[in-house]
């Protein structure tokens, strides 16, 4: 039993060993070949699982959105409508892919593929459990930033090749937003990298004996905002703002191509939540996760769905922002804030190491307390100042608005009296 429990504790390695033994002993492949095949199978499994989770997520989001909007949400197809997404997908799969006239065929076809690719590739680096991770690249953080930037290319291609002005316009907007939010996204990403001292995702998770959210809440907030913008969902869903430019760059897409774009988008939303959990919520860390790796994935998925819930929540309640507001918010507020935060916190951390006794950079929960406190203080200060500054801006803006309104009203009355 013990070994059964042990094998269950670390189910992933046991499966791995089983398979290798299978190939090597049974099929007589060379160990390298065997490991190659196992890696290949693992990758395939991961990709399909990402897309499958998607099905649940869509349903979950529509239900939550409905509940927030005080309606029931899909409940016809299957119990509580859980098969609604399957029905949608089936519909999309069967739809005919219409290629617009004058469209640039090759880029038209490639665009959806690249968008899905950019999302799925990110999962290669996400650590589900202490022993379960795609490839623990030592540049993990940088990898998924690079890959996510591929998304920009796909949008551009889609917008351009569909030979539609609205598509092109939407593409330009999307590219502008994504590129501009990439900067704060990376800067915020730097915080956990610096705190954990390494870009390897596994190390970052292991370093989070105290979740970085607690240590650097402002950084987490900036990362959260930037990631939502990266996805292009609700507060920033200017890309396919239905009311303005029909539905952005994938307007000309239909059928399976549209399904791929749609899937990529939703998957990206979920992926970002996963990143959030890995970077700021301590990934698979939980009581007993270290010992029993299989528990890791449970904690991980729990936290991810928690973050996802928040995302859907904000998506439901926040109105769409204007494109120039979005850009100016990024360049004029987020980027400077993150820079300042980053510099001050690193400075404080360095000073702390030098002057505060017993200031540990890594270690158990207790060891990290002084550092957490210090950084927490810095964050609160910077965050507070930023908040005050924004409030001031807001007040001034409101006063200007009212003045403009009063003037307008006076003129209006004058005009009426004049008539």
């Amino acid at each position, binding site marked *: 039993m013990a070994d059964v429990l042990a094998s269950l504790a670390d189910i992933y390695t046991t499966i791995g060993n089983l398979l290798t033994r299978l190939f090597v002993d049974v099929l007589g492949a060379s160990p390298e070949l065997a490991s*190659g095949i196992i890696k290949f199978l693992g990758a395939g499994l991961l990709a399909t699982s990402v897309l499958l989770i998607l099905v649940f997520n869509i349903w979950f989001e529509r239900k939550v959105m409905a509940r927030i909007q005080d309606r029931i949400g899909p409940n016809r197809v299957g119990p509580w409508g859980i098969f609604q997404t399957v029905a949608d997908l089936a519909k999309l799969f069967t739809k005919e892919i219409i290629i617009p006239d004058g469209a*640039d065929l*090759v*880029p038209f076809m*490639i665009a959806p593929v690249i968008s899905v690719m950019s999302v799925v590739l990110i999962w290669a680096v996400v650590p589900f459990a202490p022993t379960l991770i795609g490839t623990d*690249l*030592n*540049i993990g953080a*940088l*990898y998924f*930033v*690079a*890959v996510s*930037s*591929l998304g*920009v*290319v796909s949008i*551009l*291609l889609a917008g*351009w*090749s569909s030979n539609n002005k609205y598509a*092109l316009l939407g593409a*330009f907007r999307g*590219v502008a937003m994504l*590129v501009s939010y*990439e900067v704060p996204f990376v800067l915020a990403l730097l915080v956990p990298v610096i705190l954990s001292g390494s*870009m390897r995702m596994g190390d970052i998770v292991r370093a989070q004996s105290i979740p970085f959210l607690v240590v650097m809440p402002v950084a987490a907030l900036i990362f959260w905002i930037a990631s939502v913008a990266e996805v292009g969902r609700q507060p920033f869903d200017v890309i396919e703002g239905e009311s303005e430019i029909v539905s952005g760059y994938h307007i000309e897409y239909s059928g399976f191509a549209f399904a791929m774009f749609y899937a990529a988008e939703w998957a990206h939303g979920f992926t970002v939540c996963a990143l959030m959990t890995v970077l700021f919520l301590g990934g698979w860390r939980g009581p007993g996760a270290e010992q029993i790796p299989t528990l890791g994935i449970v904690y991980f998925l729990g936290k991810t769905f928690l973050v996802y819930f928040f995302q859907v929540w904000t998506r439901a309640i926040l109105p769409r922002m204007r494109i120039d507001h979005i850009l100016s918010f990024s360049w004029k507020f987020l980027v400077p804030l993150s820079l300042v935060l980053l510099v001050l916190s690193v400075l404080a951390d360095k000073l702390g190491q030098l002057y505060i006794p017993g200031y540990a950079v890594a270690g158990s929960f207790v060891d990290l307390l002084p550092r957490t406190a210090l950084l927490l203080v810095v964050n609160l200060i910077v965050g507070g100042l930023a908040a005050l500054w924004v409030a001031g801006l807001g007040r001034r803006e409101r006063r200007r608005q009212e003045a403009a309104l009063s003037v307008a009203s006076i003129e209006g009355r004058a005009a009426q009296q004049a008539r």
Partner: protein
Amino acid sequence: MTITPETVAFAIMSVLVLGGGLGVVSSRNLIHAALYLALTLFGVAGLFVLLEAPFLAAVQVLVYLGAIAVLVTITIMVTRRLMGITENVNRQWPVAALIAVLAAAILGFVVISQFAGVYPTQAVPPDTIERMGQSFASHQGFLLPFEVASVLLLAAMIGAIVVARD
């Protein structure tokens, strides 16, 4: 030169690179050229991975694919004249071709004559990225070039904004 996954990957990547390059150079439609460029860059990133320089691969993708390719594509879109695709090669293309071929011959000759059959002797030390990070900050290392590069980027950014400002 046994067939190993690595050589296969190398073949794929080199095909991507050379094919992409050829595409960039010869494609009539400029957008296609830009796409081929992206393809080439991706191939190069792959080569970097093969050369066990993952950081560079990531930076390559991030910087080139993410930014420069996008920038180029956008510029092409902005500057396209609606009167269609003009003939993409100028009068002196035979000369250019000749020069390219000559250069290839010379480089090829040098490479083959000097570097044939050289195989990596040492393994890549695992902490190269950390050491690289330290080197950027240490005086013995590359602090000065690093700062100069940052100033350069700043200047380029400001320059680009000023020049392209409407």
